[in-house]
């Protein structure tokens, strides 16, 4: 056999290196995965909100999974404004009806999609929310209109459990 040909010894080198590599990766995984959200964090994943005390034009902010969630009882004008915007004007086009279950209730995560600050309500150029951190403007449907944020404020999963109660998560 010429020295160019792989030998049984080469096979052993490659096999043991591969084995050690797989072993090291397997051993590293628990050390990496340990940093992911743990069971107690995941257990906090759902919360119920009573809507009855929130009048038209009022909003509340609650904490869900460590993040603020805005629950806004929209006025008629706000709803009309959100519905009338042509989709072409939106950086992240989405009709208002895809963002709500009932037009008067807007429920969304109050965390700017830029770098996570909490936008201020009923501020900015579009009567919705304004993020002071780097100047993102959102409209009355929480859609991004102007500024560095790449996408609309996120809608959390929620459902109406009764006429006046929702469960988020």
């Amino acid at each position, binding site marked *: 056999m010429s020295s160019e040909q792989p030998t049984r010894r080469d096979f052993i080198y490659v096999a043991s290196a591969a084995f050690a590599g797989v072993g090291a990766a397997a051993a590293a995984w628990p050390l990496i995965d340990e940093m992911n959200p743990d069971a107690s964090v995941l257990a906090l994943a759902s919360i119920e909100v009573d809507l009855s005390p929130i009048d038209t034009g009022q909003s509340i902010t609650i904490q869900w*999974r460590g993040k603020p969630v805005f629950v806004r009882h929209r006025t008629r004008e706000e709803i009309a404004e959100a519905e009338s915007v042509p989709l072409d004007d939106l950086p992240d086009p989405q009709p208002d009806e895809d963002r709500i279950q009932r037009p008067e209730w807007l429920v969304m995560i109050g965390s700017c999609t830029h*770098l996570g600050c909490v936008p201020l309500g009923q501020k900015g150029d579009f009567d919705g929310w304004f993020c002071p951190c780097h100047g993102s403007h959102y409209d009355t449907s929480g859609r991004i209109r102007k500024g560095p944020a790449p996408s609309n404020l996120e809608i959390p999963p929620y459902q109406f459990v009764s006429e006046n109660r929702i469960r988020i998560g």
Partner: protein
Amino acid sequence: MSENNHSSSYTPRSALAKWIDKRLPLPRALHDNFSSFPTPANLNFWWTFGGILTVCLLIQIVTGIVLAMHYTPNSELAFSSVQHIMRDVNYGWLIRYVHANGSSMFFLAVYIHIFRGLYYGSYKAPRELLWMVGVVIYLLMMATAFMGYVLPWGQMSFWGATVITNLFSSIPLVGDAIVSWLWGGFAVGNPTLNRFFALHYLLPFVIVGVVLLHVWSLHVSGNGNPTGLDVKKVDKETVPFHPYYTVKDGFVIVMFLLLFAYFVFFHPNLLGHPDNYIEANPLVTPAHIVPEWYLLPFYAILRAVPSKLGGVIVMFGALGVLLLLPWLDTSKIRSAKFRPLYRQFFFIFLLVCLGLGWLGAQPAEGGYVIAARLLTVYYFAHFFVILPALGYIEKPKPMPASIEESLESKTKTEKL
């Protein structure tokens, strides 16, 4: 060791010293590296910042370990434990103020040290790796200080951590998974604080290790010097590190500590932010988030770019370009003393960096953003256009033939 290679001049004096020298020649290594080490005789005061930086690192480690004995890394308790340090712990106020201002002093020194390197071309062959190891230290310092700033769990801690960790969410596809992995949750919270504390404790010791590599590399090539010329005659052009530079460095360290003490005792909160004395509130963002002063230029660059991912790439690029610097500067001449054009561009670049720092503290709107964009473009043009071009078009000034000759002409003028 190349030109500065000197054979060991250590002679163990006692029987015990001989016994040790045969088994673990640590005293010999210390003597050769920090006492008899031949150091160019013409170093100016800009060369004293290495010593200052070592002192800064030690101060942070000692005060940090003592703080950790009283601090509680839990989101419910962290803020009040820092208040407990300030009010109840004996000298706690002093130790915390030294640690908090020590971080600023550390960065002040490292910036002077880095700009010294830029002015005198300290990154050029054979010191490329020495420079790159230095850049790694700088990156580790920024990571350490960022995580330290989160620990007191005030409003700036919390929202600074939120904004900076969210930078990673701009990575396509895996961004959100990475961010929730960093947080250990769906927002910055207790798991985040806990791991940041563990890493804030660890990283300074990693820095110690990398500093040792830095000094090792330094002692292979030897110190540069203001002329940028290589040492030719060790006996005529160098002096032993001790007592010449131990005394000079010692003097400057005392001066530096005076400045340090001025901040600690007279303006302990000047460089901090009042919002950080408000406990972290995940539902309310302060009106104006600013990072610590030493990160401002990069913050300005981040905000100058109108796209989220683009901003992150450009910001990290601004740091990464420092690693390429040894190959972007095409001039063979090290010192700006003999580079009339580069010398001017050096000062422009310094002003641009200061300007970016100032802009980083302004709100991101209108003229500020436009100015930040212009300066960001200039920042990169300095490295990718000006430096490569200068090497070809610049006509260097006449240079002395050797360090010895420059020393002689200096003593002559002093005698006149």
